[in-house]
């Protein structure tokens, strides 16, 4: 049996997990929406960013939506590992990466649902992007790439953690990172230190790329940096996950 169909079986398993334990999706989908309502609806008028705040914040909140889903992925990867089911798969004639691929794809699909919800709420709050169809395709491309990269990194974190609880904690920095980027306010408005950090951390070019695309004015230098970061993170995550998976028995 091929790797692909084994991965499909594993993905079906992940879907069943989500169906049995819907709070994880609730967190992944509902939390970003709550954050969006708080920042845009409650505080939005207080931010002066030069454009309608909802137009400014939506790309950043889309990224936040990706990050909020990761804790659940890390936890579920780790409980597979610590509860021994991964060893069962490993001693079967099953392609090695299938269970991990299942987790990454499930995580990515959860991200897409969360982002769909964010965009929906954004429109209700007056979001008016000037993106063309091609720009939207670009946004989808970046989101998928980001979800894929973050997914592999999270799977690696989940595999490396000692227990499901620490695995959940290991994903917390990924949830915090968007706040120290240009997601909520422009980096140049932040204090020294934080500003430099925000300017150079990976999420800023990713957000700026999405922001550019949604404004119909994408910047190619941001896009190149964003894609390079995503590919880099995906590669590190994938290799780390693979070696940890091999080592831990």
């Amino acid at each position: 049996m091929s790797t692909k169909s084994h991965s499909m079986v594993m993905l079906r398993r992940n879907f069943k997990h989500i169906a049995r334990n819907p709070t994880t999706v609730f967190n992944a989908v509902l939390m970003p929406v709550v954050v969006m309502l708080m920042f845009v609806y409650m505080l939005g008028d207080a931010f002066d960013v030069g454009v309608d705040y909802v137009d400014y914040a939506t790309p950043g909140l889309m990224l936040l939506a990706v990050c909020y889903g990761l804790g659940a992925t890390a936890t579920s990867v780790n409980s597979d590992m610590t509860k021994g089911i991964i060893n069962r798969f490993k001693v079967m004639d099953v392609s090695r990466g299938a269970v991990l691929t299942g987790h990454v794809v499930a995580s990515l699909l959860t991200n897409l649902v969360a982002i769909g919800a964010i965009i929906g709420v954004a429109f209700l709050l007056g979001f008016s992007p000037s993106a063309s169809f091609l720009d939207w395709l670009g946004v989808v491309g970046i989101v998928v790439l980001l979800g894929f990269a973050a997914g592999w990194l999270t799977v690696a974190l989940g595999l490396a953690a000692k227990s499901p609880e620490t695995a959940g904690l290991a994903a917390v920095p990924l949830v915090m990172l968007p706040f120290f980027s240009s997601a909520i306010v422009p980096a140049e408005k932040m204090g020294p230190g934080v500003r430099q950090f925000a300017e150079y951390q990976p999420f800023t070019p990713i957000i700026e790329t999405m922001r550019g695309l949604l404004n119909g004015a994408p910047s190619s230098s941001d896009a190149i940096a964003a894609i390079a970061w995503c590919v880099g993170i995906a590669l590190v995550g994938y290799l780390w996950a693979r070696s940890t998976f091999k080592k831990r028995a």
Partner: protein
Amino acid sequence: MKSSAIAVSGLRKAYGDKIVLDGIDLDVRAGTVFSLLGPNGAGKTTTVNVLTTLVKADGGTVRVAGHDVATSAKAVRAAIGVTGQFAAVDELLTGQENLQLMVDLNRASSGNGRRIVTELLERFDLVESARKPASTYSGGMRRKLDLAMTLVGNPRIIFLDEPTTGLDPRSRRTMWSIIRDLVADGVTVFLTTQYLEEADQLADRIAVLDQGHLVAQGTADDLKRQIPGTHVRLRFTTVSQLDAAARLFPDSTRDDEALTLRVPSDGGTKSLRALLDRLDEYSLSAEEFSVHTPDLDDVFLALTGHTTEMAAK
């Protein structure tokens, strides 16, 4: 049925400085139950992990179902089933879904997959709980589901790593009868256990593992025969009687507190009659009389120089 299902020679494994397996040689004939017996930390699980391709050996050769575990791990995995020390079931899925997952991973044809699932649920008496999540199962049920999942691919060689550790006596007996049924179907079973009784009950051959070395190998009777431990125990009512009896049997050992005397004997009727006649001759009568044959605990003590409890520390 003379072919080897598992052949191990010179197996070595160390984690850092700690040598876990120090040159293990094993040969398991197809269709038999082989038990690896040893206290916690003896290296049983490491042996199973190497034999089932989970861990790479540092030295030696291991062939399972005719395939080298180092070079044809895939072929080995296709031939074996493994039930580890902790039930590896998916707790969020129901029993039925767990089995279906194994079916899906084992073969593409789902036509008879449903039948396989139903048969296993019936065989392991899990029909009533089939639609409940495995997280609600008791320890014994979880073990049964775990073993059922292992059987989905119809493996000819099954590894059971301490399959009854932590089970209550009744679930343990159920597990034993399931294992006996498997062997009746011609499956080879490699069983690790720290319970001497379990090895005695199930295994055709037993190997005793202690601190990475095999200290003995053979049938349960072979092992028991290795130590001349059969003796007769006599209990008297007074010290003077014990004194008199102790003089009669010079190679006996006495316990003054319990007023007992251990007299070495082969356990045969002739020597027993001789012993009783001897007591009669001197008008001695024992309050209690019993013949003791050594159990595997005694064997373990004799072979390793320490008891199982001591080694477990």
